[in-house]
């Protein structure tokens, strides 16, 4: 079974802070990590390889330092890595990102593509389905459980819905997106980290990809950011002491009634 896992390097969002004066993000000193949902996807791919044989290729599009997340996935147990890196890829929105990744993936042999459900910096959940569409394959999004049929031709997945989940079956090749509960990603061990450096690693530029540069990066992105600003601050939040619960609650309920909150 040949599995492709598109991954993204993201800032550790819980450590991103705003510069209150300039209204910009302070990214200095914020560690970069493998997107946690992509970690679930990498783990799922490795588990399927362990059960059914095959090969796991991780692919990312990003600046030179994004190499780190590919090395992490290789250390976890992926077999090959592809790094699409070029200034011509930068500024891509979800459509251009998905298109770029699909332009590389379409030249590969694959049975399954597993993505994280979304990246924790942008939270869009769009790149996975858009890759599936560009490759003309079906998608099952937000999966918590993956089963491959005995003949290795079908996948059955538990897809999270707003009410619970549904069991969905499809013929391979399929793109899945991984959500929480799918597995517990392993930590790379020392052996894995040593081996990762020796595994096949391909760097791909715009020229190597061979796609019309007008369809990539900022030029290929229909959506554009016009303005970035800090979220409105909550003004005048009240915090009171609850040592006398009855009195505190009275104040709270009066406040809520006055505001018409219930």
């Amino acid at each position, binding site marked *: 079974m040949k599995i492709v896992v598109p991954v993204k390097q993201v800032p550790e*969002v*819980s450590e*991103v*802070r705003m510069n209150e004066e300039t209204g910009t*993000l302070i990214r200095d000193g914020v560690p970069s990590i493998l997107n946690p*949902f992509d970690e679930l996807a990498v783990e799922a791919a490795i588990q399927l390889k362990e059960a059914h044989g095959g090969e796991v290729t991780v692919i990312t599009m990003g600046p030179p330092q994004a190499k780190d997340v590919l090395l992490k996935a290789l250390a976890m147990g992926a077999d090959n890595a592809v790094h699409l890196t070029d200034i011509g890829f930068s500024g891509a*929105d*979800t*459509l251009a990102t998905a*298109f770029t990744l699909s332009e590389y993936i379409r030249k590969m042999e694959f049975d399954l593509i597993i993505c994280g459900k979304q990246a*924790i*910096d942008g*939270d*869009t*959940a*769009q*790149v996975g*389905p*858009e890759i599936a*569409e560009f490759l*003309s394959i*079906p*998608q099952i*999004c*937000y999966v918590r459980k993956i089963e491959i049929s005995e003949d290795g031709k079908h996948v*059955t997945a538990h897809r*999270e*819905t*707003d*009410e*619970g989940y*549904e069991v*969905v*079956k499809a013929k391979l090749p399929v793109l899945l997106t991984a*959500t929480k509960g799918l597995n517990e990603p392993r930590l790379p061990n020392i052996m894995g980290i040593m081996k990762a450096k020796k595994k096949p690693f391909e760097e791909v530029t715009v020229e190597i990809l061979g796609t019309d540069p007008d369809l990539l990066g900022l030029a290929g*992105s*229909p*959506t*554009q*950011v*016009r303005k970035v*600003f*800090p*979220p409105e601050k*909550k003004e005048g*939040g009240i*915090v*009171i*002491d*609850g*040592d006398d619960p009855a009195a*505190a*609650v*009275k104040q*709270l*309920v009066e406040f*809520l*009634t006055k505001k018409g*909150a*219930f």
Partner: protein
Amino acid sequence: MTLKFDIDACTGCMLCIKVCNFDAIEKDGDKVKFDLHKCVLCGSCEEVCKDDAIKIERKPIDKSKLADYKDVWVFCETVGDRLRSVALELVTKGRELAIDLGEEVVAVIIGQDIEKHAQTLIQHGADKVLVVDGKIFADYTTDAYTIAMTSLIAPRKPSVVLFGATGNGRDLAPRVAARMGLGLTADCTGLSIDDERQLIQTRPAFGGNIMAEIYTATTRPQMATVRPNVFKPGEPDTSRTGDVEKVDIEVSPLQVRTRVLEKVSEMVDGMISVEEADIVVCSGRGIKDPANLALPKELASLLDAAVGGSRPIVDLGWLPPAQQVGQSGRTVCPKLYFALGISGQIQHISGMSSSDFIVAINKDPEAPIFSVSDFGIVGDIFTVLPELISEIKKVLDAR
């Protein structure tokens, strides 16, 4: 945009003829030919062609053509026998946008036996309802719904298409966007029309640390998914009238590549969805034991509220995943949010910070939840909650 047909690559399988809803492809010897006057570039044939003989070239549209695109569309999702509340919220918001543009609001419903919802949508602000009804649409599938949406959008050229940012909305919208080569903005919390008649789409990023205003520079329609509960549905106006148009869209079972074998509901004891509720009572680690959830559940039932949980308690299995609020669960924006024994990690805050009123009860005065709350009580939830329940009972009884 144009359709390129590579006749040498075509193997004459004729699948494209079967999937065309616009009668634009016909058999031509052992190959096919296209009538580009009928073709609307919906992409159904490109999707089904195994030989890569059909390619729709999607170049950004010429600015002078933008005026050809008119009307604000809302994809109105149904669940079981009802419309999702976000459908009415978006029709109401769509009405505002349409007034600013001097255009109409068109609601789109896809499913089986769903025409009955058309009047509700009109009463909430739709000028027209497009109904795509058929057995193949009974369950949501990415493929059938994508074909329906692209087949509607391509010939009718709306200027805006909005989807609720629900599980299905976030599955469908990017698929439609990629098929038609369109820009798409996810999870918007603000929408407006600027001086150049463009849709300005505001959304949070970086876990809610920053807001971004996004516009769709080069493609039409302008597409966005919108978080449930951000906009409030208007009161229905029973005197409003509108057109209802049934549109036949043929989808063959062969085109639907996924099959729903089973649907499992994890909603317990009439538990309300955290995304749709006006009030959410959410508990965190401070609740200590699953048996103690009886208190927040009692508060929730008094207020017709949804019972939510932070990640740690859902991970422990104390509440089903569908009730988890936060980045790895659901994003909610109710009118009133209770954070009970929740410290307020950024992953939680990004899932609830746009609620109208936030009440936090926590023992730790330094808990970050107090920085986003409108009213915080530093105290023990086990002494404060029983008082709160009895005080709210009093107020409700007096009404």
